[in-house]
């Protein structure tokens, strides 16, 4: 079973602070996605990383894919209350193929940014 472990599970910080959340696995993934989910809504895609060592930036969010494609991190600079939500990572196992494609999801990091 290919598992994605996310840490921390819960994070509560003050507005303006920086934070990093992690997504780790013992398996290799051909790509990793990060999603943000607000209560009562479906997850919304933030980014997809596909190349080992890749770094992508989305405004104050920086995403990195590990060199071995087994882990990823999300760093938020100067967090704002609007960043509050559940951050989910999801991976496409490297040994999956064709159109029968299924993602493996982590359990998420629940981030609260207090004003």
């Amino acid at each position: 079973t290919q598992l994605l472990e996310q840490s921390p599970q819960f994070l509560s910080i003050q507005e303006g602070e920086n934070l990093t959340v992690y997504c780790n696995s013992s398996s290799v993934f051909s790509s990793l996605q990060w999603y943000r989910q607000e209560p009562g809504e479906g997850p919304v895609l933030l980014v997809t990383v596909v190349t080992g060592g890749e770094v992508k930036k989305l405004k104050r969010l920086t995403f990195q894919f590990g060199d071995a494609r087994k882990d990823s991190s999300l760093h938020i600079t100067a967090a704002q209350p609007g960043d509050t939500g559940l951050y989910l990572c999801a991976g496409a196992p490297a040994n999956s193929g064709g159109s029968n494609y299924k993602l493996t999801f982590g359990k998420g990091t629940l981030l609260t940014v207090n004003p």
Partner: protein
Amino acid sequence: SQTIHQWPATLVQPVGSPLSLECTVEGTSNPNLYWYRQAAGRGLQLLFYSVGIGQISSEVPQNLSASRPQDRQFILSSKKLLLSDSGFYLCAWNIGLSGNTIYFGEGSWLTVV
């Protein structure tokens, strides 16, 4: 652009009653379609996926079934709901050969009472 919609958004059903959640995708052809369940606002559990009309794969044994009567329509059903079927259900889609990203609908809250 592609869009996905699922309904109803919320549903309260008595134990033993039937269930039908519907999902449609617009703006694409032959998508892979998925039903997920999310418990307690955390991890997602894949229930069913479909790679074409009439083709359904079940990931976990359960009280639910899925059908795909049309290319862009995916339905989640139950003949008799259990209390344990309560949860947040998410429909999702992607194109298998053009990337690994999956896109979600708005979700449906099911409460079985």
